């Protein structure tokens, strides 16, 4: 095939969008748009990396902070939520061997998150609404700095995303518990109890002979468990969004509501409680679930020590609900008891729950050796390494003593946040994409293994390197959320910029590889209406 033919029709023209089932089609839509939003986040990140070396003259500081506000939100909601939700809406019915409860609702989720992300990104781009994702009160309602109308559009965009998240939650739990048409009545209560880890906990205290068989696979249990946090998080963000909108609508109508009516510290507590359900709840649990899924599918074996792994998922439920105070260790009015119990001790438990998932995944792989070093396996190992680096960094900063000299420095953003997200989370998601690629495309072939190898090494070295150099700058006192005009930390920022550029190259290599694998026609075909009306996950001929 000529280059142009491959570009248009994909590697060996093996992919045909017409043959996709509606479920494959919707899953691929989630993943493709999620990847594109990841590209937006990477480009924004690169602009900020350049800005940290030398402020760009035609880009004012207000635009810089608008990018800083949009960047994590596009990365988490526009990219991660879409990829994760899309994959899980496929994986849960796939592992449970029954159709998704509602494909229509899945489509609604896709459009809500896609449109919501575009709305808040575009609002920030045009109007420079920049309260950051933390929305510390009363900054989002500070109309001396921000226009209330642009803020209202921005917050509405976030609310639309959260609505999409709520629909995802409903679809996941309904899929676990419902009885498909023509099936024998399913034990809904028992399925849900097993899904949230209750059965695993009970089994730990039963003799082996009396242990009950699990009704759902462990990745489904992890997905269900993380979905609980997704629901709570959506509730908190929606509630906060409505509260901010009240102030904005009042300002638009000419009323000046007093911001002191809301206690800034109480607000910070509830908002961080909700935000941490993403950072310390669903991310860690969804990642653990994806590790288990990958380990199971790569090895074809059951997960090592799975009762304990399941029980740990339930323990993590308690941990993620009570861990938020580590974000308030530098708030002097925060009660000391909350700092010690929630901020330090409960947070330290994350070392145990995530460490356990780390060990269980490695042990499952070890038991199946020798394994072939496939793309999914190498990216899985990269993801494990990412969390192996980032979680201890987080535990260190969640210490009253160390937080005094680390809070709001580049240390937080480098070795902890970016290594966790870029190396830990993103490499895990890439592993899942490489694993599910043949299944979702009915056997399409990857265009270039060399590009996949480059993708792996450039992403791994770029991600760890960027985190490390940001961390070094942070230890020297460089703050996050600010601009340095005199090149105070230029050595570290240039090195971090080079590593950031490697991440950009890695992404471009991956994107090019995927486009060449399925072809431009194939990518566009995913967004066409499906001629196939089946509720089956895979076409009959590939089952």
């Amino acid at each position, binding site marked *: 095939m000529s280059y142009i033919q491959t570009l248009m029709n994909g590697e060996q023209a093996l992919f045909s969008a017409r043959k996709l089932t509606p479920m494959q089609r919707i899953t691929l839509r989630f993943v493709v748009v999620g990847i594109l939003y990841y590209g937006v986040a990477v480009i924004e990140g690169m602009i900020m990396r350049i800005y940290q070396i030398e402020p760009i003259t035609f880009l004012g*500081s207000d635009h810089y*902070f608008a990018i800083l506000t949009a960047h994590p939100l596009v990365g988490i909601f526009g990219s991660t939520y879409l990829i994760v939700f899309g994959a899980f809406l496929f994986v849960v019915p796939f592992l449970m061997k029954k159709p998704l409860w509602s494909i229509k609702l899945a489509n609604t989720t896709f459009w809500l998150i896609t449109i919501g992300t575009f709305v808040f990104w575009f609002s920030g781009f045009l109007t*420079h609404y*920049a309260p950051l994702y933390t929305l*510390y009160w*009363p*900054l989002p309602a*500070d109309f001396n*700095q*921000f226009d209330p109308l642009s803020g209202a559009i921005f917050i509405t965009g976030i609310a639309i995303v959260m609505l999409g998240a709520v629909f995802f939650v409903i679809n996941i739990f309904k899929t676990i518990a419902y009885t498909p048409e023509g099936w024998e009545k399913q034990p809904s209560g028992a399925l849900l109890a097993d899904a949230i880890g209750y059965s695993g906990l009970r089994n730990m205290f039963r003799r082996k002979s009396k242990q009950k068989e699990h009704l759902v696979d462990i990745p489904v249990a992890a997905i269900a468990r993380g979905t609980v946090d997704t629901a709570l998080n959506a509730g908190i963000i929606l509630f906060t969004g409505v509260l901010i909108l009240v102030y904005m609508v009042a300002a638009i109508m000419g009323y000046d509501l007093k911001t002191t009516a809301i*206690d*800034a*510290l109480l607000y*910070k507590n509830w908002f961080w409680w909700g935000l941490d359900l993403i950072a310390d709840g669903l991310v860690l649990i969804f990642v653990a679930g994806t590790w288990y899924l990958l380990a199971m599918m790569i090895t074809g074996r059951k997960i090592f*020590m799975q009762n304990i792994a399941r029980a740990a998922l339930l323990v993590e439920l308690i941990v993620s609900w009570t861990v938020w105070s580590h974000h308030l260790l*530098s*708030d*002097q*009015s925060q009660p000391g008891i909350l700092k*010690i119990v929630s901020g*330090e*001790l409960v947070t330290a438990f994350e070392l*145990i729950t995530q*460490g*356990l998932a780390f060990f269980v995944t490695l*042990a499952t*792989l*070890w*038991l*199946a*050796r*020798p*394994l*072939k*070093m496939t793309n999914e396996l*190498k990216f899985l*190992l990269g993801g494990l*390494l990412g969390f192996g680096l980032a979680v*201890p*960094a987080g*535990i*260190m900063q969640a*210490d*009253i*003593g*160390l937080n*005094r*000299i680390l*809070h*709001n*420095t580049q240390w937080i953003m480098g070795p902890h946040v970016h290594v966790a997200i870029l190396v830990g989370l993103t490499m895990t998601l890439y592993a899942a994409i490489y694993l599910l690629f043949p299944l979702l495309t009915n056997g399409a072939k990857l265009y270039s293994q060399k590009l996949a190898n480059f993708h792996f090494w450039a992403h791994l070295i770029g991600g*760890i390197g960027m985190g*490390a150099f940001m961390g070094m700058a942070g*230890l*020297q*006192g460089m*703050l996050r*959320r*600010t*601009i340095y005009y005199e090149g105070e930390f230029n050595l570290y920022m240039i090195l971090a910029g080079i590593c950031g550029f490697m991440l950009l190259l890695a992404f471009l290599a991956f994107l090019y590889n995927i486009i060449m694998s399925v072809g431009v026609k194939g990518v566009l075909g995913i967004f066409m209406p499906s001629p196939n009306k089946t509720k089956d996950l895979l076409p009959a001929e590939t089952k």
Partner: protein
Amino acid sequence: MTDSSLVLYGQTIAYTCYAVVIILVIAWFGFAITRKGKGNKVSKTLFYSFVSMLVILGVSLHIVTFNTIPWVSMDLDRKNIQADQVFDISMENHQFILPQEKFVINCGEKVMFNVTSNDLTYGFGLFRQDNSMMFQMQVVPGHVNDILWEFKENGIYTIRSTEYSGPKGHQMIIKDVVHVIGCE
């Protein structure tokens, strides 16, 4: 009091060593699982030992820092400690409002910085001449934001807001405002 730069130095050494070890472990693991090995077993003892090690590490970190970083116990007990000097500072409209032009602190004095915000959430940090951070805290409107610090080294320090308070607030800096004198 132990200088915060010394604590950061210790942290840098500890974390760098850990990072090198974990990278090597994963690299070795990646190599080993592609090879046939003797006995594909993972003992439960290894698993429980690993979990026990995590518990010990998680808890001992805080016990160690409580006992070795002097500002931790002082911070938690600051209401019962008599400060040698108290500086009341306000923040409003993205500006610091200082009670005096220069804060002069004698070596060994315990100083309370009492910072209030009249509008937004800010931060309050003290920075050395080389831009490294001495300490910081959040400044939340409507609440008491106080930090007690003992100074044991001569130096001239800069005050800077360490929290984002909108595009107007990213350069809230007053250079060379704190002077510590008298240390040998």
